[in-house]
């Protein structure tokens, strides 16, 4: 089995079960979106994969070999974490040099080139950077390491719209030129949904979806119209929730988009963000 394979991973912090029997594959050369609400277990999962945390049970392998304490496997994975782990007084330029010492494939020229696109000052000390530039520093480093698996944990935290846009473009450009596996964990689902190919949704420590984006988007739709007509239409459907506006009802339905819809009803597809919200909300409708 090639790629990163996670098998039956569990982890608890005291009485909180952060991960519960999680199994998932990350294959080569694909852009993944790792989506989950706050505290769903995204960062815990990434930290275990990159050997920063120990699991209570289960294992992680890369190309069939256990990752834990395996330097060769770990050198193929880079994690851009949410917290900044570089020494506080280290200058930007030295962060690059330092990372290059651990990751020999590090592309210094590329790092300098994109740092200047983000107007990141190479002479600044790490602890003097703003929140946004802290993210940018980690981002530029992660984009330059040139390893087969790169995890981006909240890569655009604190970035303005222009720089977020720049990041998505750079990611696509890099991926097109030299494919690698990027796993992007973010709450800005709308922004990332066009970039990712495969979606992994995690909720309360469990994987609830692990599918190509397209297949997820084909699993739900909304139907709007006069309440009585909507009720009739959804009577045999799996309804996630609904909104009422006077006599007008909108139902969020999971299932394939039906072909034959009554004339007075309007059907629209659901985008990834809507799907995510409906799938991870506490059930509003009891069946």
């Amino acid at each position, binding site marked *: 089995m090639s790629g990163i394979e996670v098998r039956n991973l569990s982890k608890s912090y005291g009485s909180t079960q952060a991960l519960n029997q999680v199994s998932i594959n990350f294959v080569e050369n694909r*852009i993944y979106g790792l989506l989950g609400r706050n505290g769903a277990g995204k960062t815990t999962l990434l930290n275990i994969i990159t050997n920063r945390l120990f699991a209570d049970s289960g294992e992680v392998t890369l190309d069939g070999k256990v990752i834990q304490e395996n330097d060769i496997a770990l050198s193929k994975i880079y994690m851009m974490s949410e917290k900044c782990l570089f020494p506080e007084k280290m200058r930007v330029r030295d962060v690059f040099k330092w990372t290059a010492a651990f990751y020999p494939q590090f592309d210094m020229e590329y790092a300098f080139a994109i740092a200047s696109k983000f107007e990141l000052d190479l002479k600044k000390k790490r602890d003097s950077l703003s929140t946004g530039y802290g993210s940018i520093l980690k981002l530029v480093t992660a984009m330059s390491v040139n390893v087969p698996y790169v995890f981006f944990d909240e890569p655009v935290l604190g970035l303005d719209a222009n720089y977020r*846009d720049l990041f*998505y*473009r750079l990611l*696509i*450009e890099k*991926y*097109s*030129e030299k494919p690698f596996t990027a796993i992007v964990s973010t709450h800005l689902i*709308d922004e990332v*949904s*066009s*970039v*990712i*190919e495969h979606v992994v949704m995690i909720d309360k420590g469990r994987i609830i979806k692990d599918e190509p984006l*397209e297949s997820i988007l084909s699993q739900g739709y909304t139907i709007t119209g006069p309440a009585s007509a909507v009720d009739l239409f959804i009577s045999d459907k799996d309804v996630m929730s609904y909104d009422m506006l006077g006599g007008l009802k909108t139902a969020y339905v999971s299932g394939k988009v039906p072909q034959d819809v009554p004339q007075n009803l309007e059907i*629209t*597809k659901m*985008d990834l963000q809507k799907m995510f919200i409906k799938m991870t909300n506490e059930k509003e409708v009891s069946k």
Partner: protein
Amino acid sequence: MNIDFESDKPIFVQIAEWLEDAILSNAFEEESQIPSITEISVICKINPATALKGINMLVDKEVVYKKRGLGMFVKEGAVKKLMKERKNRFYESYIEALLEEARKLNLNKEDILEMIERGYSK
């Protein structure tokens, strides 16, 4: 180039239609090169697999073709072909939709014909 991410139309179909429009308007002439998958995906901020799927729609229609090592090119006769296809689709996409909306508004045939006349005399 604007992708409407809210649209019911899949992104790869929008990419294909955008390229078709550009070919129809001669922005990409026959036997000239169209943008690469990388260029399209970076500009539109979409996954390269999506861009590829859009281009493949045009390859299947034999509107563009691949020159090994060079990229994708517009095929000779592409404009004629697309024009024909669009004309065939005109009825479904415009006339049927028009009649449906007209029914909702209780507009009869004479009303519609009159509006079309008005449109032409502008």
